[in-house]
Each structure stands twice: as C-alpha cells, then as structure tokens.
C-alpha cells in the first residue's frame, strides 16, 4: 500500500542523499529564501521542500502528475490540511503512552506495540472516512489513486482482521507456545501459537490436547515466579518483534503520507506568498525550445517583498545563452531566475513566470565567482579552476550549467580564453550553458564565430536611470565598467553613449 502522491510509480525519499554540490546550489541561487517561504516556519516542510527541489524529475508525465495534484490542492486546501493533520495524529499516538516506553523486555515492548496499534487503528478508521468523503470532489490522478488505494486495502473485512489480531496479542487465554527439549533439557525453540477451537472445552480455560500435565509455581516462590516471567518473556520475543514491526509499518505508511502531503502544503505556502506580491505563477510545460515570459527570481522577490521585474527570453535549439553587459544590469538576477525556475519546474512545482516552456535537463550546476576567489592574489584562479574541475567531474550530457562571471579572477585575455575553451567543450559534449560574463572578448568571439550557436542578451544602459533590470536581446558591447568609473571620477567621456547612471562599485544583483 503506497501513498504515491508525488509520483505514479515511485516513493519519495526525503532522506535520499543530496547531490554533492547541493550547498553550492543553495548559496548561488539563494534557495534558502524559497525553502523558508515554503516552510512557513515548519522545519519538516522545509526538509521535504529542499529534498524535492534537489531531486529533479526528468519525465514530463511525472511533472504533470505533480502539477495536477497541486491543482487539486489549490482547489481544496482545507481537505489537504485535514489529511495532513491525520498523518500528524498517527505520529502522536506514541506520545500519549506515558510510562510505556519500549524497554529491554519483550513483554513491555509487546504491550507498547499493542497500545500503539490500537491507537493507529482509530486513525486508520478516520482516514477511511476522509478519503471516502473526498473521492467525489478531487480530479487529479494522484489523489484519486490514493483514495482508491485506501478504500481497497482498508476495507471492512480487513478492519475486522486488525481488531481480531490486536485481541489475540493481549493473550486472553494465556501464552501458548510450542517448544523442544533443548540443551540440558531447557525449553528451546519456542514458537507462540494460536490455540485451536477443537481443543477448547466447556468449563476449561486450558485449550490444549489431552493429556495435560501441569504445575503451579507456589506463591511464596518469588524466584520461581521471576524465572517463569523470564521464560514467558523469551517466548514472546518473536511476536513482540512482529508487533513492533507491524506498528513501524503503519507508522511508516503515515510518515510517507505526511511527507508527500508536506510537499503540497509547502507549495500552498509559497503560492500564497508569491501571489501576495502580485507575481505571476504558472504550471510550466516541457518543450525543446525555451520560451519564458515575465520570468523572475522568486527568491529575490520574496526577499525584497515587492513585485519583481520579469524578463522574456527565447531559445530555439541553441544550447548556449550568453548574458553580457555592464554591472548592475540585472544579469545575475536573471541567471538565478533561470536556475530556480528550472529546479521548480523539474520538481513538478509551478514556475515563477507568466508563461514558461523549457527543455528538461538533468542536474543543475552553478559556477559563481566567489568572494573567496577575490582574496589572495596567488591561488584565486587556482581555486576557481579547482571548483570548475569538480563540476566537470560530476556534470553529464543533458545537464545545465549556470556560470556567473566565471574566470573573472584573472585578466580578460586569459579569462576569455579559458571561458571559450570550456564553454565550447561543454556545449559540444551536450551540456546546456547559461553564461553571465563581463568578459567582452569571450562574448564577442562567441558571437563572431557563431560556434556554438548562441543567443545573446545584454544588460541595458538605458537613459532613463531607473533600475528596470529588463534585459534586451543584442550583441555584446565592449565593457565600459572601468571607463565609466574613470569618466565619472574625472568627468571625461570615454565611455560609449556617455551614460553615467550606474554606481560603479555597486554590486550586481542581490
């Protein structure tokens, strides 16, 4: 019996090992902002959100399965919360059992498990009721499938069986075991048995085949009583284990339900937060060409608490997108938007755009120019190359690489050469690359050669002076950052267009 709310055939494992570069992704894309919004203060929701975001789906049907399920959630948020509350109640069953913690003795373990199972049977009963109630109003394959599973697997006959089993585990007729004559005559190979109705006699509590030989430990024989207790305990071992495992199975089922519902609850949280800003939010579709309208970075929007500026972009089969231009032109923000949207899309979540069609990729990698790269003169390029080398160890054809000002720790000629060779080699190998760069030589040579085919976006140097951050299509322009600075400081006019609206030492993006 599987929950299967997040995938038609697979279980979701929030404890699955994260990709080794998860921390880089989190830091570079500032994903914690999104996860915090999804969590809305609940650490468990955050864990599930993080795990789901970092386990991209690559099957469009699986993505649509989640998107449809989320559609149901948007229409029936209260029912979803009620189901989630039930999964929490199952977890709380144990906590009500004061003084009945699992011990080192099978008898106390068994008693603990029997109590737990009794509590769980009540929760199962409620689950049946809720699922039956929801059956008619939901439409997604995920939820309908789950409701059907519950109705089928937990039918009336099965509920009767559950109750009978729990009754037997309380041993109303005593503990019956079969055994052999073991080493030195000890009772060995005990197996707990269910007594046969043919051996139950009128007026006798002893359901055994005749003849019967019996003794009673005298009341004053305390040692004997404790020895008998010990023997009983040893004999209960396997059944106590079975009962404990049974209760673990049931708990695991509810834990799986809790986990998968948490993913949708977290999306509801994000949906509330994003739509409150007036930002668009849409289910994305898988397509070979990239087409985005009003694509924005939800993390930045959540941080500044304002409606974001969206960007449009279209790729028609090109594997390479190069974003060039002056600093503080919204390049990094746009690169983040591309990355976050791709992760959300492939987690089966809605996407931060008015409209998004995107090719499915494998794993996402980021290579950001880092603060530490700008530290010691000696070794910073080393470090950058080292990180890139680690990425190249792991990246595969079909994966997506976002480069943000890579190789800017060296001079433009060297940096461009490195970037050009690397980019061409990766694209040739089938990796999709999105490259933000102020290395004019690099961007220019790509554009001149047309090898590989690429789309170029440019940070605008508009005259209005407002920070619209809307990127425009266009060929790379010689960077004028230093000239800008010089111009402003000296009042000269070496920069093209003579525009001085940017503060030169202001950091780009967030």
């Amino acid at each position, binding site marked *: 019996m599987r929950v299967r709310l997040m995938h038609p055939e697979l279980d979701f494992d929030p404890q699955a090992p994260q990709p080794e570069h998860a921390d880089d992704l989190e830091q570079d894309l500032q994903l914690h902002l999104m996860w915090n919004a999804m969590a809305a203060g609940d650490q468990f929701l955050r864990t599930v959100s993080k795990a789901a975001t970092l386990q991209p789906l690559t099957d469009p049907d699986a993505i649509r399965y989640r998107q449809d399920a989320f559609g149901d959630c948007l229409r029936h948020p209260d029912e979803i919360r009620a189901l989630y509350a039930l999964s929490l109640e199952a977890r709380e069953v144990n906590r009500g059992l004061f003084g009945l913690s699992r011990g080192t003795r099978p008898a106390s373990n068994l008693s603990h498990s029997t109590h737990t199972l009794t509590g769980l049977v009540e929760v199962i009963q409620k689950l049946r009721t809720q699922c039956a109630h929801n059956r008619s109003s939901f439409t997604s394959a995920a939820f309908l499938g789950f409701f059907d599973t519950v109705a089928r697997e937990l039918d009336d006959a099965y509920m009767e069986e559950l109750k009978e089993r729990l009754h037997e585990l309380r041993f109303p007729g005593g503990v019956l*075991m079969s055994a052999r004559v073991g080493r030195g005559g*000890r009772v060995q190979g005990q197996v707990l048995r269910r007594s046969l109705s043919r051996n139950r006699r009128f007026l006798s*509590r002893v359901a*055994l085949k005749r003849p019967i030989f*019996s*003794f009673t430990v005298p009341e004053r024989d305390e040692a004997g009583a404790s020895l008998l207790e010990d*023997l009983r305990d040893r*004999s209960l071992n396997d*059944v106590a284990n079975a009962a404990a495992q049974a209760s673990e199975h049931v708990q695991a089922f509810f834990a799986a339900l809790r986990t998968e519902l948490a993913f949708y609850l977290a999306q509801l949280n994000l949906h509330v937060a994003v739509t409150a800003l007036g930002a668009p939010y849409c289910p994305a579709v898988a397509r070979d060409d990239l087409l985005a309208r009003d694509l924005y970075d939800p993390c930045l929007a959540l941080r500044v608490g304002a409606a974001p500026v969206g960007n449009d972009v279209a790729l028609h089969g090109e594997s390479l997108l190069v974003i060039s231009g002056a600093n503080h032109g919204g390049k990094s923000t746009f690169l983040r938007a591309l990355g976050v949207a791709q992760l959300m899309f492939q987690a089966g979540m809605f996407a931060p755009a008015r409209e998004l069609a995107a090719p499915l990729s494998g794993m996402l990698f980021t290579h950001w120019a880092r603060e530490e790269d700008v530290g010691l003169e000696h070794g910073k390029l080393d470090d950058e190359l080292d990180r890139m080398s680690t990425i190249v160890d792991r990246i595969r054809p079909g994966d997506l690489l976002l480069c943000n000002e890579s190789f800017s720790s060296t001079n433009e000629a060297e940096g461009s050469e490195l970037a050009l060779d690397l980019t061409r080699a990766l694209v040739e190998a089938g990796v999709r690359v999105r490259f933000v760069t102020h290395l004019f030589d690099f961007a220019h040579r790509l554009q001149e050669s047309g090898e590989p085919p690429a789309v170029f976006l440019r940070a605008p140097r508009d005259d209005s002076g407002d920070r619209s951050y809307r990127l425009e299509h266009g060929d790379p322009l010689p960077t004028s950052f230093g000239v800008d600075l010089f111009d402003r400081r000296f009042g000269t006019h070496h920069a093209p267009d003579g525009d001085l609206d940017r503060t030169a030492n202001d950091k780009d993006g967030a």
Partner: protein
Amino acid sequence: MLARVATRPFTSLMWPDGQPGEQPTAADVLHDLAVDQLVPQFQPEAAAAPWVHPLDSVDAVRDRQAVFRGLSLGPVRACVDAFLTSWAGVQRAGSAATASRHQVQRSLWHVRALVGYSTAVDRFAEALPTALADAAGESELLDSFAAYVERLHLDPAFTRRRDQAASIQAAIDELRYNALIQGGKVSVAAYDDEPDLESAVLATFERFRQGAVNDYRVTFRDSDELDHVQAWILDQVVLLYPGPFRQLVGFADETHDFLDPRLIRFTEEVPFFLTYLDLLRPLQEAGLPVSSPEVSATSHELSAPESWDLVLAAGLVSNHREVVTNDLTLTGDERILVVSGPNQGGKTTTARTFGQLHHLAAMGCPVPGRSVRLPLVDRVLTLFEREEQLDSLEGRLGTEIDRMHDLLEQATGRSAIVLNEVFSSTTLQDARILTREVLERVSALDAVAICVTFIDELSRLDAKTVSMTSTVDPDDPAVRTFKVERRAADGRAYVQALAAKHGLTGEQIAHRLEDAR
C-alpha cells in the same frame, strides 16, 4: 636424510620419543630474546612446553618440522580446526553434565557430549587422510596419527556407542510439546499443529510496509543452567513422553569416560603448532621470508639471509610498518659475530634475531629467514644489560660478572651465546679487557656467538670473529636504515656521512675554500 621404515605407533605429536627431560630453558633467556611475550598465546599449558624444552636431536627437529609443514597445508589445517572446534563443544557439554544434579538433565548433556564426540571423530577420520594425501607422506607423525584416528573410528565399540547415542538423541530432538502459561500455572501437553502467531501478525500488517524496519528482538544470554521452573517443565515433558527419557537415562549410565586419551593429548599439543603458524602468517603475507631450517648436529656454519626479529616484526607489521631484514653468516672457522656501529641502528635486534634463530630451530619451528642453515645447539645462553638492577654501579657490575660466569659454566662447544652491550657500565679500558677475555673464552669453547659491543677492535680478535656494523643512510646520516651489515668496523663511516651532509668532508672543504678565493 634417512627415511625410517618402521612406523611407530602413535603416542604424541609433540614428544614421540617420550617426554622432555628436566633443565628447562631459563626464563631470562626467553626474556632477553623477547619471545616471552609470545609464550602466553600458547594454550593450554602443554602447548607452551616446547618453548622451554628445545629438542636435542636432528631427527626430532625434523619430525617437528614435518608436522609444521603438514599442518600448514590448507585442507589439513581446516580439518584440524574443525575437530578442535567440535572438541571444545564436547568439553563444554561434558562439564555441564558433571555439574548437573538433575538426572535427566545430566543424561541429556552426557549424550550430547557423546554425540558431538562421535561426530567429531567420524568427520576427522574421514577428512584427515584425504587432506594429508597432498602432503605425500611428508610427516610420518601426522600419518600415524591419521591412521590412529581411522582405527578409532572403525572400532566396533566406538561405532556401536555412537549409533546408540545418535538414535537416543534423535528421539529426544523429535519431541514437540506445548506449554501454556496462565499466571503462575504452566500446562504441558503434546503439540497439536497449532498455527503460529508471529506470522499471523506479520501477514496482517504487511500491507502497510514501506521499507525495511528495525529488528526489535531482544538478545538473551543463553545459559546452560537449568533453573528450577524449567526443570519442572522438563519433568512434565518426561511424564508426557516417558519412553525416550527412560532410554536416555539408561544409556547415559552405561557410557562413562568415553574420550580417547591420545586424542585428548593431541588436542592439548596441536595448538603449539597452530598458534606458531598463526603467528607467522600475517608476517609471511607481509612478504617476510620464513623457512624450515636445515639443522646440523656437527657443523657450526650459519647461513641466514634476510633474517628478522620475530617479535619486533609482529609489532611492526600490525602497524603496517616496514621490517628490515639482515643477512647473518658464519662460515668455515668463523664463530663469533661482533656487532658495532651507531646506536639504535638495529644492533640489539640483530642479536635477538641470532638467538631466536637458534632457539626456534631447536624447537623444530620454521624460522624467520630465507633458506636458513644453522647448527642445532644444546642451548641458547644470553647476557643482556639489565637496566633494572641499579643498586650501585659496583653491585651492578658484580652481578653482571656473576651472570657471565654462570653463562660460561653452562656453555659448551654446541651452545649459542648472545652478548648484548655487556660491561657497558665500566670504564672503556676495563670493558675492553673484560670483553676480550670473555670472547677469548667463547672462542676457546668453540661455541657460536654474537656480541654487541662498542669496542669495535674486538671484531679483529682472531680468525673466529666477524665484524658487522649498523649503518645509516649515506645521503642523510640522520636516517637510520636498521640494516646491520657484514663490514669492517672503522668507527668513522657515520662521522663521514654527517660531515658530507653539512658540506664538511675534506673534499668539500677543499672545494669551498677554492671557490671562496
């Protein structure tokens, strides 16, 4: 080598020619050779006896060596190990029987011991001769032992008892009973094919399974003791099934003391061989050479290429460190190795190795070294500086001289003598005189010896002395190689190397002065 035609009837793997005599090797000697650290691993007591009772004939040494070779064969070892494991179980059951006061329980243990013993002997008798076939009759002792076990296994008294025990045990094992516990009341009856509860519980909840779950079973310590409640249950079972138990008790009464005394002796002696082989195995796997030495009762020649200190190597190999080997040789008239050179360069280790080689060879053991040849000595005698005896300088020197005297009293022309840094507490002049004196006496005895001393001129005492020196890395004198080589002692090699490191050799100084002009 002379093959003995008549096969002796088997008595002992260790002492086929009778028990060793008195006069065991002194504890001091084992301590100086550091092998006293190994002795406690040899259990039971009988398995440690060879350490203090070296053999006195070449034939006896060869017998032992052959047993070692046989037991080092995988299949032979495997079936001996299996036999010893079963034997330990038989012993446990036997002592449980002895300790029990409940008649049925005692009989149960007794029959269990007997069944275990019979099975062990049967399996051993079937497996050992096959396993030994690969040894191609190399060890006459092992072959005669295998023949002995086979005879035992075919002995009608043995087989009759075995079959009876097995059928009685099987009858008991077949018994199935039910016990119903209701409060303090226990009812016992025949098992009636009642279905089991565990699988019913598991089946009911199986549909909830999401993945692997924990094992909640509690581990109980199994005791062989039958407490009084279980004894009462056993009494009910006896009432339920009187026939099989009557047979059991009757049979146990008829079969006392069934263990064969020679097998008992075998199980006490064979651990000597196995423990020693186990000690060697990791060292051999680390690439250290081991050989069955060729011993001679007449020659004094020693050839031990790539020899090493057994005890030191055991420590180094377990820490994954390299073991340095040395070549020890005495040919022709040579009798005494005089070892000098820089300190902590492996001199004491070399002295120990020399002593160990002779002692281990006389125990009939494989020795640390490649294709070793050496004399069979009547005893190894050692004199190591004793740090712990610090009463007074005079007292210490006195004790040392007393011990030296005793040593020379015991030594014969067939002894091996190990002298390590003797007389180091006296003046150089005195030490020179005393050591020379001792070496002259050793030389006169015609014993073989190794002498570690800082008085390197003693290596040129006479034709019987050979000089060996510890060495350092020529490129970096701060690095010791632990290599002790046969080389004239000049006392200057080390100083030369140090000087070279600092550019201060005569040649270097000449060049530097020239360049400075």
